[in-house]
């Protein structure tokens, strides 16, 4: 059981809305999750599931027209919703770090890597001297597997994999407690990706880094995550220990994903297909949002009532699922389910 001191970041009933041409859309709909110190939490979802919106909201970053309309963000005992933008800026970079999908656009193309790093450090630690900051930058970069001298390069002179490492270096430069990595390996080749994931695990062990890894690739999650959270259509549908979720998925969407994602092992069994496609968030299906695609849908319950995100009957707090298969409902008794 996770005690409150273990929990580094707690998202409580967060809803994020943004404007589209035809009205307001909820990109994140009443999501609650806890991230424990020193863990790697994998947040899995497809495009349009709301996972990136959630990541950016957790940093309270500007994201188009998106606004947090309700809920709280508790970071290490502090309610981030009460902080001013200035205070948030102090937090970002020093205690909360973010790694984005495409490092080319998140690094200033006319600034050398070393300048980027030292500037970040000196902003948050003004007492350091230039030499101290520079030395630390070189040290970090080497620790991440890049030769010291390359610190003088510009972003375009480095490969994608190296740039991603630089992004991590930025996060480590000031001993971030939590790093939110949004699709960090999607644009990388598979061998570079493997090396990067190894690095994440090492950093977690060595620096006790806490990582929220947002991705659509469940293979990546299986490789590095301790716990897994699954998002669908702006809601969380399942969360639990990684071994448990992969072995006995509770939510039909999770099951569908696991069975329809290709597995390179020769003895992995057959591949299955899922019906339909992810819904349009501006007019999501009523009741349980997955019901139109669900092979287990119960007509009297699922299209009408939205299931709670709660531990299934009899299970511990650590596991939660939003599915009527696992929660009681008076209608279920009526149909004998």
């Amino acid at each position, binding site marked *: 059981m996770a005690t409150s001191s273990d929990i580094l970041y707690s998202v409580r009933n967060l809803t994020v809305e943004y404007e589209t041409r035809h009205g307001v859309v909820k990109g994140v709909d009443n999501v609650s999750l806890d991230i424990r110190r020193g863990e790697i939490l994998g947040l899995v979802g*497809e*495009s*349009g599931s709301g996972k990136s919106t959630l990541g950016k909201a957790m940093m309270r970053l500007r994201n188009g027209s998106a606004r947090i309309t309700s809920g709280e963000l508790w970071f290490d005992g502090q309610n981030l919703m009460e902080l001013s933008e200035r205070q948030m800026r102090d937090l970002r970079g020093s205690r909360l770090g973010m790694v984005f999908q495409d490092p080319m656009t998140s690094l200033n193309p006319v600034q050398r890597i070393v300048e980027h790093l030292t500037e970040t450090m000196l902003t948050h630690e003004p007492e350091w001297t230039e030499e101290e900051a520079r030395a630390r930058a070189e040290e970090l970069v080497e620790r991440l597997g890049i030769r010291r001298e390359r610190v003088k390069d510009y972003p375009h002179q480095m*490969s994608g*994999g*190296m740039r991603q490492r630089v992004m991590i270096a930025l996060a480590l430069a000031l001993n971030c407690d939590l790093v939110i990595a949004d699709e960090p390996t999607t644009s990388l*080749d*598979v*061998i*570079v*990706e*493997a*090396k990067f*994931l*190894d690095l994440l695990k090492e950093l977690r062990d060595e620096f006790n880094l806490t990582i929220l890894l947002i991705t*659509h*690739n*469940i*293979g*990546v*999650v*299986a*490789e590095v*995550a301790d716990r897994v959270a699954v998002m669908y259509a702006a809601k969380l549908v399942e969360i639990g220990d*990684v*071994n448990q979720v*992969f072995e*006995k*998925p*509770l939510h*039909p*969407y999770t*099951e*569908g*994903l*696991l*069975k*329809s*994602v*290709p*597995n*390179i*092992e*020769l003895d*992995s069994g*057959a*591949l*299955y*297909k*899922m*019906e339909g*496609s*992810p819904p349009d968030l501006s007019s999501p299906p009523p009741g349980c949002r997955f019901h139109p*695609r669900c*092979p*287990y849908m119960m007509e009297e319950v699922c299209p009408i009532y939205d299931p709670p995100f709660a531990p299934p009957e009899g299970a511990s707090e650590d596991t939660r699922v939003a599915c009527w*298969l696992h929660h009681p409902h008076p209608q279920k008794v009526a149909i004998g389910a």
Partner: protein
Amino acid sequence: MPESRLEQVATPTHRIEAGPPLVEVRGVKKYFPLQSGFLASLFNRGEQPAVRAVDGVDFEIRRGEVFGLAGESGSGKSTVGRLVLNLLEPTEGKVFFDGMDLSQLSPDEMRRLRSRMQIIFQDPLASLNPRMTIGQAIAHPLEIHEPNLSEGQRRKRVLEMLEAVGMNPPTNYADKYPHQISGGQRQRIVIARALVTRPELIVADEPIAMADVSVRSALLDLMMRLKDEFDLTYLFITHDLATAKYVCDRIAIMYLGRIVEVGPLKSVYGSPAHPYTQALLDAVPVPDPKHRRTQPMPRGEIPSPIDPPSGCRFHPRCPIAQMGLCDVEDPQLMQVPESDNHLAACLLRAGPRAMGQQTPPS
């Protein structure tokens, strides 16, 4: 959870025909010249720098086969796909389709041949003309290759195709524009357009990479069922080795413009010979938390295709490279011991050295 009710993805029937191959690629190279600056050109002394996208590739595709072409970025696989269809002309080498040398055909003959070989692109939105309706897009190849059809007959074929790719009812979709339907549906339209002239060869260039994860397997299922229904041969180009496992009969692994290993899927995946293949297969994330990687990852990164390393291209990163040999000799594809039809371009793991024979006198 109650018993699983998901449907399995159709698997290919592996019905490969004997007889001459449908496609033959011989010694094909494709170089893209770079614009060098004035000063640089003074120092180049004649040799113009070029991106060597494809640097000597040989293979054949047999009728009824699903031939996989896999590799990371910069491997040249997409370029090979276009060379096979003559959308690009090779700098060197030849491509044969059904015994015909594509470079010898007149533009008209080549155009007519296109009804027999089609391509499915990676990005369905980009490959559909935003100003044509879906019906028009699918009908267009018919207008070109079967001009004797009446409008009614064409419409009938279009609707048949839409049904065949799972867009029901077809009349709902025929008059829509590409931006009005979802991504997975668009890829089905691209497939419909590719199949409407009943081609024999389909080059699929990352056909499912841009679809949502939960939709990909349905697309794969469609492609496999259509293969049987329409008697197709596929050249399946992908960077996703896990997907390739389910559909390919044979697979070729590309690195820096060359094929480094080729053979039946079970042989290549089961006992990879080339160190790069081994690393590549091991690196792919497996959706099983208990799985552990066993191979060390090659050091460094993929070199630039403008100036590849000497000798074996993989040698600077290879864990078993032998200096004096691997940095000097550039290996061809050679027989892998005890594995039928399985070739690898590695001096140590394939060919005479690997078979335990004496090293040939230099």
